[in-house]
């Protein structure tokens, strides 16, 4: 329970379904530093606790700050230091919510962990679990859960996934939950809004000025501040070319302190290679068995799904080829794959190399 409306309603629905004696609320203390959003502040913990009290269930706070720092925050910082852009929400889901918390819940004797994510889990007749987009297309969070597997899904519940956000708020209001009108959390939970990503990273990384290089000609176009904060695909601050068209970052080489920029076409790529590949249902996934399969790729939390083909590359990675060229995927970013026959169904995920 983050103290937000989604997990509050998720808890309420579970209590309704199972009874208050079979559900316990848990809030994760994840970040020791200062924060004003997400699930890290004392005020949010209080909201979670008050909602749990109102629902008549026990509430615990678990301190996972050490793992969060080691598994989410430090890799986020190190990623930027080496020109990668990791998604901290996905790494938190992978290592904290659906691993560390699962273990804790397990050792305390619980069968399952429910979260307030907008996604749906269904189970087929033969006991296989599927992950489906949330009912509210604008709030769907299947992208940040795409790295789950059967083992985790077996013990996961997403009670609000069948509701739209408006319905979630209505339900919260109907139950008189104090979180009913609480604004949605934004951005990365451990970064304060007044410092921003650049401020957060700037305090923790030595930032280096670099050179802007023309992607087509190799020409040095001048200086660029803080190459560690530049992301592939970025448009902001890259100006226009002599042709009057905007320039985009096509590649970042942090060690060499070089940022390559190019035209919108140059900023596009026909595909992307993925490592750290995961499958929702590995047993039924036919990559490797077939030379090439079709899929739908989504490259950011609310990115537009695009048709693609996937195949195992020689390096053991997964090669994704888009039906039409897409804006380059920054290394470290997660690509979620969906079923072309049933585009709400998640197949798996990987991290852009």
């Amino acid at each position, binding site marked *: 329970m983050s103290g937000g409306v989604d997990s509050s309603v998720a808890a309420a629905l579970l209590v309704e379904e199972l009874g208050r004696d079979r559900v316990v609320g848990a809030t994760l203390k994840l970040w020791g530093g200062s924060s004003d959003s997400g699930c890290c502040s004392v005020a949010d913990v209080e909201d979670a606790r008050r909602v749990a009290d109102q629902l008549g269930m026990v509430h615990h706070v678990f301190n996972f700050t050490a793992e969060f720092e080691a598994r989410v925050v430090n890799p986020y910082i190190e990623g930027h230091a080496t020109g990668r852009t990791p998604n901290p929400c996905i790494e938190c889901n992978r290592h904290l919510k659906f691993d560390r918390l699962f273990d804790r819940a397990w050792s305390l004797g619980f069968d399952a962990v429910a979260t307030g994510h907008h996604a749906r889990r269904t189970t087929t007749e033969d006991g296989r679990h599927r992950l489906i987009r949330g009912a509210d297309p604008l709030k769907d969070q299947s992208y940040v859960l795409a790295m789950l597997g059967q083992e985790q899904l*077996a013990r996961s519940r997403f009670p609000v996934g069948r509701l739209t956000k408006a319905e979630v708020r209505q339900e919260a209001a109907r139950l008189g939950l104090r979180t009913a009108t609480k604004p949605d959390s934004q951005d990365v939970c451990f970064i304060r809004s007044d410092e921003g990503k650049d401020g957060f990273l700037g305090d923790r990384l030595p930032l280096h000025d670099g050179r802007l290089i023309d992607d087509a000609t190799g020409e040095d176009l001048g200086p660029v501040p803080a190459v560690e904060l530049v992301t592939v695909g970025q448009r902001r601050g890259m100006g226009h070319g002599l042709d009057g068209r905007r320039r985009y970052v096509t590649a970042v080489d942090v060690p060499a302190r070089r940022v390559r920029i190019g035209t919108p076409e140059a900023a596009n790529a026909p595909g992307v290679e993925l490592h750290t590949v995961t499958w929702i249902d590995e047993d039924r996934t036919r990559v490797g068995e077939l030379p090439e399969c079709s899929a739908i790729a989504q490259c950011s939390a609310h990115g537009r799904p695009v048709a693609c083909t996937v195949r195992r590359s020689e390096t053991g990675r997964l090669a994704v080829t888009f039906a039409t060229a897409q804006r380059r995927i920054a290394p470290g970013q997660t690509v979620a794959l969906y079923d*072309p026959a049933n585009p709400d169904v998640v197949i798996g995920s990987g991290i852009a190399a």
Partner: protein
Amino acid sequence: MKPLISKSGKGVMPGAGPGPGRGHSARQTAGARFGVRLGQTGAMRAYLDHAATTPMRPEAVEAMLPYLSGPGMFGNPSGSHHESRRARLAVDDAREQIAGILGADLGEVVFTGSGTEADNLAIIGTLGARAVSTGGRAGPIVCTAMEHHAVLNTCRAVAGPGIGGLREVRSDKSGMVDLDSLAEACTPDVRLVSVMAVNNEIGTVQPLDDVSRLVRTLAPDAVLHTDAVQAAPWLDMPPITATVDLLSVSAHKFGGPKGVGALVVRNGVPIEEVIHGGGQERERRSGTHNVAGIVAMAAALSATVAERADTTTRVTRLRDRLVEGLLASIAGIREIGDRMGKVPGHAHLQFAGVESEAMVVLLDEAGVAASAGAACSSGAVEPSHVLLAMGLDKEAAGSGLRFSLGTTSTDADVDHVLAVVPGVVARLRN
């Protein structure tokens, strides 16, 4: 193009057969076990967190009630009519009683709103007074790294580079302040030294005699403060008070109410008010007196002292039985700190391979109230800075658990702990 998902389930990869993941089938349904819920009573509870707080003694409850609403007794002591005089008399009586027990003069006892406030007044008030008396001359602060956060965080908050910084003195493996390190920290320019009388997590009694001698010799200008919040329930206080300049106590650790504490300010020790207002407590702590709380504090302390010999014998025996019982029945556990050097109520054990945060939850469910580390404002368990200061690594510090007994502890409590802890540990290690 072929679909990525095979509907037939062909091509099964090795090692990931159908059915639930690790150990699911061996699971029992959790719901039935979770019988103990807020609001439900009747189940056995063994309260072993007296170092966090104690139930109020009946004498204290009885003493305070008339001062809440009793005719002529609810007054504000800072006034001149009958009701005020009556309340003032009660505060004066309580002060006299408490001063006597602590080995202080009447005027040396300053009532505060908590032990934490007493610590804040001691530290901030000393720095304020010294800034005036020395024309703002700077000097460092010294405290131990295993102080309660009331001292540690106050020192950290006020010890900017402007005053010469804070020197945190480490402790040895047995939970005692390292006197060599303390000696090193006590340079002649030190303004304030704060060393707790009894550590709140481990229960070790600190060698304040040695500390005092050392401070008086090496840093003769320093004011010596001790947080005696955990000492007051167990130790004869006058010898402790005699060694220091400032001493903090808190009522709820010895059967008094929460929200009352006191700072002993030895005569001649300058202190600046931290909470400003009507100038109560001889202009050392403003704010209307918590008359009922102060009266109850005195009653609780008197009762504590009157029963101390008996309590000490009885609780020591219970504590030893608890520790020895656990050590005998569970492998891979060890006692933290030297038991001979602890106050009677404290037991601290480290359970290898067990996360104390999870253990507290399962013990609670099984009817045992114990604690791990220090609870932060959100309710999460922080890794114990005391154990870290004693040189334990993070994992070891995250597997320590404190059982603290008090006057209400019984053999039945110990029996219950001995009955449930082995099962909880086995479960968490599995």
